């Protein structure tokens, strides 16, 4: 394996990163909404939210990807695109995990902060928005970092749908060079080089801010 091969491998990184980041954002929005639905006890929707979590946490993400692309792709045009199917599958599943991260973080802020906010005259939404949420997001940072790392790694399943990500490029390289060891080894190292700094940064940032604000 030479430099050209390595550069070829790098060409898979943008797809890996974009699937991971987009699915993280989708998961962030869904997770946030589910956490609020469960926290505010919005009746009826709470059970829908729980059903959603149970389903997406219980099914392998690869099965969801295959279901989206090959199953739904037959009649829903956007799922014909492998990139879209992979991103949505990861994003929807990530929502089911991020909701847990947010809910835990919101609960950790505690009732006393809510009571103090109400005593100043803020309404429940203002109290949530200005007092609970900013603290909860700090508490959630390390968990969000792990979730991001998980998404980067699990985005590798998308190569089965034909997405030209890092894993797919390693696979192509393996066929082209007939070297079975180095393409995958190089890909593995690249995955570590991408995931570790992101997860580590969010973890450190979370600890730093928690100390600064005296959060638990």
């Amino acid at each position, binding site marked *: 394996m030479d430099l050209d091969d390595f550069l070829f491998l790098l060409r898979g990184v943008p797809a890996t990163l974009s699937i991971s980041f987009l699915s993280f954002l989708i998961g962030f929005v869904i997770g946030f909404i589910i956490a609020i639905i469960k926290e505010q006890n919005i009746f009826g929707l709470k059970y829908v939210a729980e059903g959603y979590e149970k389903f997406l946490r219980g099914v392998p993400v690869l099965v969801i990807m295959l279901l989206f692309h090959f199953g739904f792709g037959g009649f829903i045009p956007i799922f014909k695109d492998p990139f879209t199917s992979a991103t949505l599958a990861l994003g929807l599943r990530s929502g089911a995990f991020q909701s847990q991260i947010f809910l835990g973080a919101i609960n950790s802020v505690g009732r006393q902060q809510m009571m103090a906010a109400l*005593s100043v*005259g*803020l309404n429940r939404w203002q109290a949530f928005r200005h*007092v609970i949420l900013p603290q909860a997001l700090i508490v959630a940072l390390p968990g969000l970092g792990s979730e991001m790392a998980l998404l980067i790694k699990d985005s590798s399943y998308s190569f089965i749908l034909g997405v030209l990500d890092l894993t797919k490029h390693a696979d192509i390289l393996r066929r082209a060079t007939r070297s079975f060891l180095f393409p995958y080894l190089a890909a593995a190292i690249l995955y570590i080089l991408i995931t570790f700094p992101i997860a580590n940064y969010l973890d450190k940032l979370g600890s730093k801010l928690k100390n600064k604000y*005296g959060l638990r």
Partner: protein
Amino acid sequence: MGEVVLEGRGIKKWYGKLQVLKGIDIKIEKGKTKVIIGPSGSGKSTLLRILGLLEPPTEGNVLFKGRDVYAEKLDLNKIRAKIGFVFQEPSLFRHLTALDNVKLGLRHVLKLSEDEARRKALETLRIVHLEGWKDHYPAQLSGGQQQRVGIARALAMDPEIILFDEPTASLDIELTWEVIDTMRELAERGITMLVVTHEISFAKEVADEIIFMDDGMILEEGPPEKVLMNPKSERARVFLRRLLGV
């Protein structure tokens, strides 16, 4: 008798099968300082939270400036803004500096502009002698300083009354004084206050009236010298003897 700012009528509260308050009648007049003493578990904090509209009574009425808050379905947020509350537990917003803690309600409840809110918050921090600590986060302040920022946060809203729920209970003795002194200054400024405390010297010197509560009921009420020196009930006598160590 002056204008009654806050009043509880026949307040009863159950938590499940446990009755914590057994029919409390209480009135706080404008400009007066009323102090509630009594053993822990007597329902003092619950009463304060109910009068602060932070939880509803099971039975009875809360009147703010003569209007029945729950019966008339008044906007609780609007009235809470006019009733300051200082808690026993650390309750500053942990992600905000001292200044921003005081500013939050000014900005989002009273809707003051950024400049006005800042000016008002600084002015209030000056009253509690903490303007030099405005950029510190709660975690960087002592327990006593945190309580004084909490007092400033309540005071900045120009409340009709401030309720204090054992504001010195979790503080060391030397930090207790700075909080007590701040409260004394507020009383001198004519701020209406209802204070739950075990600080008898504060009660003796500052209170216009003292209430002794036990077992969810008011057993004594009257001017300090009467309640502290010459209580009618045996329970108040026992409590005061222990508290004063005589």
